[in-house]
């Protein structure tokens, strides 16, 4: 039986949960409502809150490729973001998987791993001036390639560290069995370790894509037009420009947020372990 005290505690807890949910949902919900409200409603004082009509026009504008339109800028940015995300992830994987395996199996190079993880925590501003000079001397500014190189400074340390702590969980004995059978090292990695690490690799892949999708500093510094500008840059420009239609901003935000939020929900179980215990095991 519950005592009165316990009952009050339970009611308070439910009230607190509703409050937390509201704090998260209300701003998000409002952005969605804005994106489908007629512009007149959004510039009326006092604000009516409930749209007088549903207006999906902005989504259509953003997602239609017409010359010199918001849609053109937005869709090119979307393409660039996907392209940079894919490229950076491929680079990260080619380099980080073998390295992570070495870090996991050979303990005496641990200090090197710490050094790499340490750079992950440095502000990107430490790299930007020289990177800018290097990229400009190769005439790579304003190209997706530049961003792939730059984003690697963030993604590589992360993937190495994350993959390493995952590979730690794959028993070394399985590989040793393969070695006794006379398998070559790369063959053991390819046919024994990699298949076992598939879920881990999938998770890491999604995390890397999230990092690139979120990246902003390198993108504003190293790009200047629709050939390479990513979504974050376009959204920042929209936010500080003289766009009079707040609904368009909201719609752009919604479209840019949907893919990472879906990825986040998929990653739900790994987020905490990925961000804390992975580093703990060293």
């Amino acid at each position: 039986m519950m005592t009165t005290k316990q009952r009050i505690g339970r009611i308070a807890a439910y009230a607190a949960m509703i409050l937390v949910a509201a704090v998260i949902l209300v701003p998000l919900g409002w952005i969605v409502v804005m994106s489908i409200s007629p512009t007149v409603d959004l510039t009326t004082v006092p604000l009516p809150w409930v749209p007088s009509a549903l207006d999906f026009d902005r989504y259509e504008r953003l997602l239609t490729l017409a010359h010199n339109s918001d849609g053109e800028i937005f869709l090119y940015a979307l393409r660039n973001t996907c392209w940079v995300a894919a490229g950076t992830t491929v680079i990260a994987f080619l380099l980080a998987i073998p390295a992570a395996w070495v870090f996991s199996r050979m303990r005496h190079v641990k200090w090197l791993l710490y050094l790499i993880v340490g750079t992950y925590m440095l502000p990107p501003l430490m790299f930007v001036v020289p990177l800018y000079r290097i990229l400009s001397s190769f005439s790579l500014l304003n190209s997706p390639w530049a961003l792939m190189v730059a984003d690697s400074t963030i993604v590589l340390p992360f993937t190495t560290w994350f993959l390493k702590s995952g590979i730690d969980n794959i028993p070394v004995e399985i590989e040793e069995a393969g070695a006794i059978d006379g398998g070559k090292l790369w063959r053991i990695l390819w046919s024994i370790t990699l298949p076992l690490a598939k879920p881990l690799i999938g998770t890491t892949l999604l995390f890397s894509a999230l990092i690139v999708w979120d990246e902003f500093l390198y993108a504003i510094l190293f790009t200047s037009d629709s050939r390479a500008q990513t979504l974050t840059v376009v959204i920042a420009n929209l936010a500080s420009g003289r766009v009079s239609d707040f609904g368009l901003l909201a719609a752009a935000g919604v479209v840019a947020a949907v893919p990472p939020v879906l990825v986040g929900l998929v990653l739900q179980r790994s987020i905490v372990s990925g961000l804390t215990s992975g580093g703990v095991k060293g």
Partner: protein
Amino acid sequence: MESRGRLLLLPLLIVLLAVIGWPLLDTFWLSFTDARLGGETGNFIGFDNYLHAFRAPAFRRALFVTVMFTVCTVAAEMLFGLGVGLLLDMNLRGSKFLRGLLIVPWALPTVVNAMCWRVIYNPDFGALDAFLQQIGVIKAYQSWLGDPTTALIAVGAADVWKTFSLVALITLAGLQAVPRELREAAEIDGAGPFARFRAVTLPVILPPLTIACVLRTIEAFKVFDIIWVMTHGGPLDSTKSLSILVYQEAFSFRHAGYGASLAMLSVAVTMMLIGAYSRAVRMQGAVR
């Protein structure tokens, strides 16, 4: 196997040396020169840039803004995160849903979050002003981001909204490691809720929380995106963090050398934080 295995490290190391190692050294060197962006390599000028930084009010001001932002947002995140984590651990109906909901602010791109709050804070038609006026808290619309006294708080609030959920999830994961029998035993022994929290719960969640706190501090200290999108460092430099200052010096004013020295100084602070982080990691290792 050993020596051949080590070769697998080479590609990564070569690339990291090129994209991280060399730029770091170059930044270090630049900080002692008067190099300008896109121009000559610059002359060696000793510690002039550093002396200039210490003398210039802009650096002290940016350091102050950054420390204020970091301390306040991290404190608020830890507080809300811990509270929400404890709440979720009660396993009430709807906990699963709320747990999923927490992912959304976490996964939202920082720039999108910043833009959304900028629209909500808008001084002419923003939802915050509309809400506060309609419930009678304020009489006239306020410019939250346009007023130097409120701008940093408004940006900080938007940041906390996005980041407290991660702390909540970390707390929750830590709490689930508390053995249920231990809690029940403490309850049977007649320990009150606070005594139980201190004796049973806190020791288990303290190490992951410490790590969360240090990681968040390092992140907050680097803050750039959210401030850039919401205020560009204004009004009257009231939100100009170190990162914004470095960006403006190096890229808007093209003072590559001076910008590099400012970056070096902010790294000195980050280094101290990383030291704190590795100590926290060792602490957690000891508990395990």
